[in-house]
């Protein structure tokens, strides 16, 4: 039992496409910890549901050596372990916000920890002990699209990308033993691979030894909110969606014929038909790919991995 008190694990995933991977990670870790005599929970972030294709979402595991005092929360308070199934979220989503001091970040990517760090330049890393990477596979486009919500589907648990990510978490944190994980998944070779191949970049002294979670915050007093609100002007910046994107459409202005096919088909109204050169509104572009699929001119719009660009996506 490698936890004293409550350890919270947060897994970030892309809605729908990676839901099963994420739920498998939290389920397998919780089940393994249960084998070791811990009290556990695994569940979805209810506020992220219903999830939508590519929206950043969270699943949670909570592992404790004593009964869990507050079993009914929507969100993890202060995770000591954060995993990211699709690496672009490191750039666009505040994945380490609210972590416990000494927490670790595990990212599924073929990039190195050092490469990911350049996307975290503007982020306060003082509470982060390490950034680790594992090439677990299961890219967003390969993920099974499934409408099933809730962390209850344990069929085929730990196959695909979930196994190596769970294995990497076990290795870096020791939150569960490799053997316990191997015993609860259908593909022990996957977790073993993750356990063995994880690359860790310690930001300070090596070793997972998280400090205490901050005390529960005092409730701030709220006030009445109306159920009728003014309509937005120009854009709805109450729902910024640029961080859903992992592929960025890039227009080749020389090839672009300004036919407006991309513009007319963009569900998110992100393309401005400016005769001086068509523009894509990256604040909202979800990277769905309709524009580059429908563009009648070969090469006029190309998908480029968002991680090839440093900056340019808003964190909330």
């Amino acid at each position, binding site marked *: 039992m490698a936890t004293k008190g409550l350890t919270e694990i947060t897994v970030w995933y892309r809605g729908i496409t990676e839901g099963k991977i994420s739920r498998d990670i939290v389920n397998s870790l919780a089940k393994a910890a249960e084998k070791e005599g811990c009290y556990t929970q695994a569940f979805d972030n209810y506020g992220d549901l219903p999830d939508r294709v590519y929206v950043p979402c969270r699943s949670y595991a909570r592992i404790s050596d004593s009964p869990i005092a507050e079993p009914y929360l929507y969100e993890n308070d202060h995770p000591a372990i954060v995993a990211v199934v699709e690496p672009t979220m490191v750039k666009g989503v505040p994945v380490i916000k609210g972590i416990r001091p000494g927490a670790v970040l595990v990212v599924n990517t073929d990039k190195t920890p050092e490469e990911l760090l350049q996307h975290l330049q503007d982020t306060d890393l003082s509470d982060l002990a390490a950034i680790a990477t594992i090439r677990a596979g299961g890219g967003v486009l390969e993920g099974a699209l499934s409408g099933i919500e809730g962390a209850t589907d344990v069929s085929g648990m730990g196959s695909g990308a979930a196994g190596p990510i769970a294995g990497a978490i076990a290795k870096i944190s020791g939150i569960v033993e490799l053997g316990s994980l191997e015993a609860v998944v259908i593909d022990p070779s996957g977790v073993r691979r993750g356990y063995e191949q994880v690359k860790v970049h310690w930001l300070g002294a090596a070793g997972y030894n998280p400090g205490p979670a901050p005390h529960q915050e005092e409730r701030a007093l709220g006030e009445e909110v109306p159920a009728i609100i003014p309509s937005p002007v120009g854009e709805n910046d109450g729902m910024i969606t640029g961080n859903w994107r992992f592929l960025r459409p890039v227009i080749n202005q020389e090839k672009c014929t300004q036919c407006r096919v991309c513009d*007319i088909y963009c569900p998110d109204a992100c393309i401005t038909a400016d005769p001086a050169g068509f523009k894509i509104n990256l604040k909202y572009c979800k990277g769905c790919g309709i524009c580059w699929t429908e563009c009648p001119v070969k090469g006029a719009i190309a998908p480029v991995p968002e991680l090839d660009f440093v900056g340019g996506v808003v964190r909330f």
Partner: protein
Amino acid sequence: MPEIRTLGAEAPGKSSVDEYEQIKNIRTAPTKEYYLSGHRTCAGCGPALVYKLVAKASGENTIFVGPTGCMYVANTSYLNGPWAVPWIHSQITNGGAVLSGIEAGYQAMLRKGKKQGELPNIICMAGDGGSSDIGLQALSAAMYRNHDLLFIAYDNEAYANTGIQVSPMTPYGARTTFTPPGKVVPEAKKLWPKDLVKMIAAGHPSVKYLASASPAHPVDLMNKVRKALAYKGPTFLHIHAPCPKGWTFDPSRTVDVGRLAVESGMFQLYEIENGETKLTYRPRSMKPVNEYLGLQGRFSHLTPEMIGRIQQFVNTKATEVGLAVPIPATPPPTGA
């Protein structure tokens, strides 16, 4: 005393459409958006694309009613919304009724001088559940009462917001979370879908204009919206809305899937004007339905025999409207 309008006039005979500004092509389509960036719909969301095109066509003097469904929840989940024109939520049950009330309110206030100006475009954007299933009663009443309004069913063929459950518009053979394929039910959904447009057309004499549309044919879609709005009285549009989440396809293929639905005859584009049905698009040569089904994970469990049944269904529909049927359907085994 001003003339008192009573609901119910004008049913017999033909109605003609006022002048309306047609959109010629994509390049010259209006650029102004009324369904703005900033909504929590799926990447590649078909219904969102439909919404954008409808709002673009209807313009600024428009009021939207949004019954519960993805286009309520995904658009407003966080106490905000993407519409530049007025929008009001309705229950999934009562889109047609709230829509009727807005129209009746405007008619009375304009007549009595309590409001100035002209009647706005009053449009309900209901999903297939909010139109063909739990919302059918309110839809039928709105069409019956000769209100001046437009009811649009954006059809993504399932209750998608709640996690893809079967609706009366879900095609035969589709997997949903309420129709999982299994040993006992190998084809997943066993029933054939309702034909909502025919249902409305057949029994609502006040409705002089109905049409089907697809976001894969955006100019046609926008012109049908404008034409429907130009008609006095109730009008109805059935708009196909491919759903990457519910149908299981890559979100970059939304328009593609919509296009193939039309090319394969699974979704026909037509108008019913004063009782006369007219195809507005004729596929040059119908593609096998398998090409359409094959793009989507929700049909991945189907056997050739089941696909044959769907081809037969499509062929029957095509023959009804005089389309050539180049693809023979696998004849079902005896007794089927």
